[in-house]
């Protein structure tokens, strides 16, 4: 379940990207998930068939790390604490590990839908 995003439109215009990047960085830090050691992709809601399938397709190491991050974040949240600075997610670590797989699955589903509604003209 990927969210609608303006990212590609912004990235296509360098001047716009230059303006928006500091704002985006500020927003990501302010959102606070990095201070709990999470990545942006950890926040994608799991309650959909697509995401469940994508989670199944994660490599074993990625899946393990994801569960570790989530549990650590829950623990922090319960204890009303933030992680020490060195354990917080750095911007360089905040990579999209799940959304490419989700996009792939969505593309598959779309292709299936397209092929299903295909109209056929006979060869002349």
């Amino acid at each position: 379940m990927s969210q609608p995003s303006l990212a590609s439109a912004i990235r296509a215009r360098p001047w716009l990207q230059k303006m928006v990047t500091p704002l985006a960085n500020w927003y990501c830090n302010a959102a606070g998930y990095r201070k709990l050691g999470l990545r942006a992709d950890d926040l994608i809601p799991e309650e959909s068939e697509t995401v469940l399938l994508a989670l199944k397709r994660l490599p074993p190491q990625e899946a393990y790390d994801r569960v570790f991050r989530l549990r650590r974040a829950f623990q922090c949240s319960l204890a009303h604490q933030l992680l020490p600075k060195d354990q917080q997610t750095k911007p360089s670590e905040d990579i999209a590990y799940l959304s490419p797989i989700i996009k792939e699955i969505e593309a598959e589903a779309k292709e299936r839908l397209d092929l299903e509604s295909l109209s056929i003209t006979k060869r002349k």
Partner: protein
Amino acid sequence: MISRSAIGRHAQLALRRQSCVQPSARRGLAAVSTGETSFSYESADVGGIKVASRDVAGPTTKLAVVAKAGTRYEQLPGLTVGLERFAFKNTQKRSALRITRESELLGGQLNAYHTRESLVIEAKFLREDLPYFTELLGEVIAETKYTDHEYHEQVEELIHLSQKKLLANVSELAINSAHGIAFHRGLGNPLYPTSSTPLAKYLNAGSISEFAQDAYAKPNISVVANGATQEELSKWVGQFFSQTPATSANPFTSTSSTYYGGEERISHASGNAMVIAFPGSSSFTSGASYKPEMAVLAALLGGKSSIKWSPGFSLLSKAASAFPGASATTTHFSYSDTGLLAIQFSGSAKAIRDASTEAIKSLKSISEGSISKEDFTKAVAIAKYRALEEGQNIEAGLVATGAGLVHGGKPFQISEVGKSVESVSAQKLQAAAKALLEGKVTVSSVGDLYVLPFAEEIGLKV
């Protein structure tokens, strides 16, 4: 009396049908033939790939890529099955779903299977779609992605099912076990991994992908078509098979198979089977080591009747008919450098015990030369028919030719096979039978081991 009006109406209808102009874009059945009907394959070398075709008249074509990657050549257990199941999955250019839907739209059928020596990926389609399917096969062997998720979601499950299927089939278990005893490694690898093979240790998308690099290298494959002209096939193969790797990083070693022999007994609760096997002859396409008398001996021992309502003339069917519940068949498995002449029994354990004793007696009688001339003539005729039919049969001919080409032999030439089978004499047959009984025998029994006999009990030495 037929009423006049009825005749009149039918005549009118018939006339109307005749005068109706048929759309000329589609050719009728009679007009399709582009070349003379010939049952021999033409072969050529197109950019390092061996290409053979046979232009049989007809509106359909069968195209196959035959790779020298059967279970004999797999470096780890299950690789061949894994690679077979990965055929027509996602490629760099299009998805598995698109491949399926597109070929459905063209009325094509896609299939992949393997034998002990070859892995075959084939497509059947209308003659005019040759370019599309040549491109598809070229893409499948060179550009399949071998993704992890496809392996876990689709391939793995199918392999587990094939393992279960094998476990339930005692005849298959017995024949696999006989191959294992006779050839140990290489040809002795089971056709499908047995249910207790620790596949997870060896098999994953990565190892299959590596195997594919070697299996689908140019020197390792041949493209065979039935119902396409050689020029057209060569043209499209030259265009669409350019992505295929030119050499394999670690080419499959082809150490020639040695025959060992021995006995194996496997306990099984459902069903009984027994295989008695002897070293056989290599396939016709291998050239020098081909021994046509093995095919005749297989026909003479026989087992399954080729005519209805009669046990037939063959020695085994006569022997087995005395023991209701037992069935015996003789099959000659021929490979590129060796073969296995196998007598397979199935049925109730007691009937198998009696029938196998009888079968060995009849084999001994052949070796002593006490077969009638009539039986011998019949056996030669059947062996010749089988060999020719196999060549004419599109499927078997494709695989035999493809395998022959990759193993460095010659394509399956139907006329020569017939001649060599005819040249077998009764003395030659007797000598062959004698040599078999003097050598080491392979015996494999699966089922109720309390009743099934040991090799020694039925007069064989292992």
